[in-house]
């Protein structure tokens, strides 16, 4: 009998081009995605000396980071200096013969929404992109992680990366999720419980009955915040749910190739008895919807919870961090989170902008109205998601509730307050995004991370709300 291996070990072993000693390997990269912000810089690595792209067919590109999300947008942006990134990606992909899902292309969207939706991310593949949330596509069983733009140039030129082997962790989410509790709540709770540094150095496999019960879109959300857990990568082993999701997607294998791929994928899950360097078990059956109170994703609690007291932190550095977070967020120790008045609500980003997210939010919003003084925005994750949502009438529900219904892009999650693509100074915002960092959604903006239904319920209430107590 061969030794029992984890899924990570199987995939890693199948990607070793050269073992260079001390746990450092040259690893093959199967899929590479570029966007305008980092992709444009990656092309610079091919200029001097001039180098070709080794496998143009394995790299894909789209526009998402710098382009605007307002209807009627174009190839220019009000972000000062942003135009050069848009033109840089378009010119670079043309020069090197790479596929680009350009602004008007029906496949345009946020990279991590697009790559599983199109069947570009596949189980057991390695996939990288110059964006930290690349770990999202671990939701279909890919080993995926974010890289810098110089590393992106290395992938373009060599189709490989030099990597040290991570340790392995398995997080078992067990039990049945209560109504209104979703993948976003699971991952926020995990980070809150273990810490924002908890996954550091690990390839993290999410498993357990609660994960098996999630659809692929929920698994993508779960894996999306792997980087907020500081994991090297996060993934869910492929199963029937994964295969039915991928079958027929434009860039997924077809015919005999599909049969070969499916046989390979079926053998990927961790063997019984495989050993992990760390295992964590989380019981989900009593979990409340989660919301962050601070400026690190670990600073979170149940929506029925209270702001903790920094005085109770043992480590002085951690205490000062909490004090700074409370000062930035304009909160006091002991304050209840539910009921805090908000000025903004955002549904979008690579975390929570897929069709299931929009459907869940729409079910809460239906028939309701966001009060005056709350700026509410929805940016669907991709042009395909947007069109599918519109075909179901979801856009009409959002609009009727007072939400702006925009085009797909990263926008309110990363533009940092550029005019028309951010919130105002010291505004309190409930957001389906992944980062409550200082200034992430605009200078001084106070972001509370939560699930789509919590954001929808809060938008209607004009304050942070417990969706479980919403009228039926």
């Amino acid at each position: 009998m061969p030794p029992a291996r984890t899924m990570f070990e199987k995939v890693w072993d199948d990607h070793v081009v050269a073992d260079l000693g001390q746990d450092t390997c040259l690893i093959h990269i199967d899929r590479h995605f570029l966007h305008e912000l980092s992709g444009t810089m990656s092309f610079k690595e091919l200029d001097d000396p001039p180098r070709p792209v080794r496998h143009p067919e394995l790299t894909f590109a789209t526009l998402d980071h710098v382009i605007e999300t307002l209807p009627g947008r174009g190839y220019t942006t009000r972000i000062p200096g942003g135009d050069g990134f848009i033109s840089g990606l378009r010119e670079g992909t043309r020069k090197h013969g790479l596929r680009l899902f350009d602004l008007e292309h029906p496949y345009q969207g946020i990279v991590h929404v697009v790559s599983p939706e199109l069947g570009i991310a596949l189980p057991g593949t390695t996939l990288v992109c110059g964006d930290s949330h690349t770990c999202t596509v671990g939701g279909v069983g890919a080993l995926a992680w974010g890289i810098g733009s110089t590393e992106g140039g290395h992938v373009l030129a060599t189709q490989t990366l030099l990597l040290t082997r991570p340790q392995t962790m398995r997080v078992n989410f067990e039990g049945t999720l209560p109504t209104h509790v979703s993948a976003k709540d699971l991952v926020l709770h995990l980070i809150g419980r273990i810490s924002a540094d908890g996954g550091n150095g690990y390839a993290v496999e999410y498993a357990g009955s609660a994960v098996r019960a999630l659809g692929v879109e929920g698994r993508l959300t779960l894996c999306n915040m792997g980087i907020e857990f500081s994991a090297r990568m996060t993934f869910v082993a492929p199963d029937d749910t994964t295969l039915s999701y991928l079958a027929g997607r434009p860039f997924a294998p077809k015919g005999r190739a599909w049969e070969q791929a499916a046989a390979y994928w079926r053998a990927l899950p961790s063997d019984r008895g495989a050993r992990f360097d760390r295992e964590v078990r989380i019981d989900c059956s009593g979990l409340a919807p989660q919301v962050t109170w601070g400026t690190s994703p670990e600073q979170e609690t149940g929506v029925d919870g209270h702001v903790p007291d920094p005085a109770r932190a043992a480590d002085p550095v951690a205490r000062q961090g909490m004090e700074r977070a409370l000062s930035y967020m304009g909160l006091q120790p002991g304050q209840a989170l539910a009921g805090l008045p908000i000025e903004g609500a955002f549904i979008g980003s690579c975390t929570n902008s897929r069709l299931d997210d929009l459907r869940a939010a729409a079910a809460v919003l239906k028939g309701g109205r966001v009060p005056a003084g709350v700026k509410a925005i929805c940016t669907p994750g991709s042009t395909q998601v947007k069109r599918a949502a519109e075909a179901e009438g979801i856009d009409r529900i959002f609009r009727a509730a007072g939400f702006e219904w925009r085009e797909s892009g990263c926008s309110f999650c990363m533009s940092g307050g550029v005019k028309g693509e951010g919130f105002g100074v010291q505004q309190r915002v409930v957001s389906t995004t992944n980062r409550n960092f200082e200034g992430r959604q605009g200078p001084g903006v106070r972001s509370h991370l939560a699930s789509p239904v919590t954001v929808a319920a809060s938008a209607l209430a004009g304050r942070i709300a417990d969706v479980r107590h919403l009228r039926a």
Partner: protein
Amino acid sequence: MERFTSLTGVAAPLMRHNVDTDAIIPGRELMKVSKTGFAEGLFANWRYSDGERKEDPGFLLNRSPYRQAVILLAGHNFACGSSREVAAWALRDFGIRCVIAPSYGHIFHANCFRNGMLPVTLPIAQVEAIAAQVEQSGGQQPVTVDLESCTVTAPDGQRFPFTLADLHRTALLEGLDAISSTLRHADRIAAYQARDRARRPWVYDVPAG
């Protein structure tokens, strides 16, 4: 790539946990198709008050001698978050070529080695001990980081050894270009792909979409 061998100078003790790359350089400061010229945007949200370029005298790097810092001391999970390589470029442009912390965001850690920068990993107690000595001297006492011997020398002369994979160490010491180094293995890449294509043809035969 610029070599890194040894560095002696002012160390700035930014002893906070989970300093994210949005704090190191905010999104709006990234908009330059360039790998240099980001010093002014470094820690912009903390360095300047009210969104103007007016320095906040309370922030560490606005005070002497930390303005001249070449080393940064930090808490757990330094440079977590976004993959923006500008975080490394902004530190380097400011003059900081070495960070000493107990752990790092993994993307920043990898980016350092592509930019002639050294991320030293030491246990938190050792980073705090070095930071305390630096603070005691008002930042005047220098810290030395030597990559040949893989040691950090604190102001009082105490030496702390650190480890680093040989591959990273050699690349920094010799200023190697990573793509050129990897292309020396071009035959192994080709051999791997031939083997792998037989096992996983579906990886290489991408449908037209």
